[in-house]
């Protein structure tokens, strides 16, 4: 009986202990879940793409450069921005003010600036290069400035502008990217853990069709117009002769000019940018794939740059300086410059010995055919006459 009592007691105690551990675990889990729901990113990247060529698409380059300018101003360095411009407007011969790209009429704001680094320009802006940048599958000789070296704690801002339609975006008037391809590229990025959270903004006609097919988590998308609507351009400048900006990006730029690196505006303010009265088209957004509440996401989570500083109290021991052996030898030979146009040497130059290559497959095949036909007609006994 006492043994039974003891066992029930121990059972009770065991149950109590298990309950305690479970409660602790729940609390801990709640904490980590809470941490999970606040942004845990450590670095920011931006991929800004303008997909249109030709002088009359000046406004698309101005769109992309104004987002570039805002993103740089809020802290993202050039090494973390991949800027793709399909054509050069600033130094275009039609530009009455070279090395400038204006966003406001009367040349108020030069979004090109003096310190710009374009990573992909001209003919390099293709669908293939764009998808390779996103997925990271670039040839090994690609330089660092052309790569998106994001990891699983990166927040990435992707901005696309150009001419588009229902379900596709045109690149340089010669090829398209479809919304399915884009969604698959984002899924590849998710599988390879290339982003923590992704903000996708698109300013084209029928832009909302481009984010309809997304299915990877942690993506928030904004578009300048719904399916069936056109995105309109803002204002022309009569001196330059073209439309300078698109409406959505113009009001987006005005909104971003008020943001500074410490501001606390959140995504709900971004969704209100450019209502139908200003934009004529209806901007749309998609947040169902995003795990956090958009009201808790700061604008600077995507447009600004996080710098986490860790203070350490450890001492670091510097190694001894490397002692180079003093080169004692005295150079005996004298160097000299070479004659730039040695006429006599050139005239008497021997022709280069070309490296001998084994005969081509075609030549070998041809000779084999000739020999086969010969020996078939005349028989093998003629072999001894040949060799």
């Amino acid at each position, binding site marked *: 009986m006492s043994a039974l009592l003891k066992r029930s007691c121990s059972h009770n105690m065991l149950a109590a202990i298990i309950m305690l551990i479970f409660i602790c675990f729940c609390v801990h889990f709640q904490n980590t879940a809470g941490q999970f729901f606040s942004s845990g990113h450590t670095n920011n990247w931006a991929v800004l793409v303008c997909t249109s060529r030709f002088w009359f698409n000046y406004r698309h380059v101005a769109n992309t450069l104004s987002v570039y300018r805002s993103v740089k101003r809020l802290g993202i360095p050039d090494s973390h921005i991949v800027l793709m411009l399909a054509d050069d407007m600033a130094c275009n011969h039609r530009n009455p003010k070279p090395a400038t790209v204006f966003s406001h009429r009367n040349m108020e704001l030069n979004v090109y*600036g003096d310190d*710009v680094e374009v990573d992909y320009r001209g003919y390099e802006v293709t669908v293939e290069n764009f998808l390779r940048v996103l997925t990271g599958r670039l040839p090994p000789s690609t*330089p660092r400035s052309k790569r998106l070296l994001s990891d699983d704690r990166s927040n990435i801002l992707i901005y696309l502008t150009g001419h588009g339609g229902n379900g596709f975006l045109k690149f340089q008037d010669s090829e398209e990217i479809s919304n399915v391809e884009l969604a698959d590229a984002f899924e590849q990025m998710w599988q390879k853990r290339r982003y923590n959270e992704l903000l996708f903004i698109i300013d084209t006609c029928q832009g909302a069709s481009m984010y309809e097919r997304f299915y990877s988590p942690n993506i928030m998308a904004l578009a300048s117009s719904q399916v069936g609507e056109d995105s309109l351009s803002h204002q022309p400048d009569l001196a330059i002769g073209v439309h300078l900006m698109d409406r959505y990006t113009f009001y987006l730029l005005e909104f971003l000019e008020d943001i500074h690196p410490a501001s606390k505006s959140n995504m709900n303010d971004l969704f209100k940018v450019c209502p139908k009265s200003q934009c004529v088209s209806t901007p749309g957004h998609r947040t169902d794939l995003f795990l956090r509440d958009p009201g808790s996401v700061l604008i600077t989570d995507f447009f600004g740059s996080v710098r986490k500083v860790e203070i350490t109290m450890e001492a670091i021991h510097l190694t001894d300086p490397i002692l180079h052996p003093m080169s004692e030898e005295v150079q005996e030979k004298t160097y000299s410059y070479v004659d*730039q146009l040695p006429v006599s040497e050139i*005239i008497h130059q021997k022709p280069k010995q070309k490296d001998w290559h084994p005969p081509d497959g075609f030549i070998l095949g041809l000779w084999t055919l000739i020999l086969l036909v010969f020996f078939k007609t005349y028989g093998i006994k003629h072999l001894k006459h040949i060799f």
Partner: protein
Amino acid sequence: TFYIEPLKINKLGVRASDTFVLTPTPQPKDDFQEELVIRPLHSGDIYASFQFRTLWETDFMRENKVSHYRLFPKSLGQVISKFSVRELHISFTQGYWRTMQWGQPFLPSPPGAELWVWFQDSVTDVDAAWKELTNVLSGIFCASLNFIDSTNTVQPSASFKPLGIVNETDHRFLRYATLPREIVCTENLTPWKKLLPCGSKAGLAVLLKSEKLFHSSFFSQTVHIRPVCQDRECKTTSWELRQTLNVVFDLHTSGQGKREWSLFKMFSRTLTEACPLASSSKIYIDVTDNPQEEYFELSPATPLLSQAVVLGDRRTFSVYDLTQQVTFGTVRSLNLLIRWKSTEGECSMLRPLLHAERYVAGYGLQTGEIHTVMYNNHPFRSFPVLLLDSVPWYLRLYIHTLTVTSKGKDNTPSYIHYQPSKDRMRPHLLEMLVQLPPHSVTEVTVQFERALLKWTEYTPDPNHGFYVGSSVISALVPSSVAMDTNITQEQPLFSSFFPCKEESSYFVRVYTEPLLVNLPTPDFSMPYNVICLTCTVVAVGYGSLYNLLTRSFQIEEPNPRLAKKIANFIRRIRGVPLLS
């Protein structure tokens, strides 16, 4: 590693034997010089040439890697050691240099981008190193240099001899490529400025503002890396990095028609100090045509005068030394002003001795003819020139139609090297050594046929045309003034770029215009049109035929009356057969 000055230890009054002296590693000496040359041109335009030179006594090729960079930019140093580069010359140019109006430039460059590299003898696979090098450079300079591949790279056999110190020249280690379509804009200037030791914050580089520089008739920025002699004996070499920027401002677009130029008008900035890291920082104004100040006046006045032999001519320069505080005067800023007094009485410009042009003749989209015209304006001397032509594979040259004529008569070149093209793999390479008779015009013509490209090989804007790179003409032009063959560093930078071996002639390189040819371009909307039309025809024609053949027709009963419908409904519930 660091270096302690022995003076400091003595001042502290500590005995040498008591001190713990870290074995000093003598830092390789490096030196930075900057210079600006301004030359007023006879057409009213003004030519400004910036030269920045960094000299560094180090050896990139030794086993212990160089790790401490001071004045020499680290990105270029790593490129040199990784790819075993002996010489690197890269230039980005916008506009075409008009030799007949402006004379010869100090450093010539072709429109677009040009890159030529000499590799070290130790490189085993030059083509692979070249491909990687172009990719790395495209990242450094934000340019599309990755479009350089085997279809536009050539290996000249006699041109482009090394400009630096070398043991022997084996042309297997030389690669030359040009991209005539390449655009130059602020995104190329920004990383170029970042290579300078003072950046664009101090010294002459504060004048480099893109809004003014690109609003010009000609803009060119170059980087040249080569090993040079350190001193007269030339027993040791050091690495030289030269960055030059040439710009020609037009009288009417930048000068508003007024013949008065100042630093502020040209660059919208004035100078306040020299670069603190520079050992010499000077401005040279060419006053050879203005010996007694009769045509233009220079303010603020300067007592320093210097003479230099440049491009076969002895020129006089007024010098402003920015390392002296007195140059900036009381206002602490220097704004040079050149004002012309009157428009008459201009002495004529010295005619450039060598000049070249190039154009495409012919009509239609099948055949054509390339004409290269070279002018020798010397009255009595003839000199040899080396012509290098690199034509893309889609213009099929007929070399049997190559003719070289001078003054109407045939002029046989003493050396011809021709490498035929291979479709989609290699361009044509034609190198000829031609002797130009005095005071004559030599014309080189060759006929070609245009190829049809595959539809994926067309650019997104194929109706613009396709570019053919400039021809390069290298020549030793006889000089009227004895050239200085002394290789000490006391010469101004702009006159000491090409090494001079003999006194009676100087080396010059002239670039022609690039050509723009139209290839037969298909209508790219046709595949879409054909698919639409075919599908419509198939759907309408075959579809209706198929329906007619396979569809069977049945007689349909009209809708039954309401009572019948209810009766049928009840019958269905009961499970009894329905009324007809």
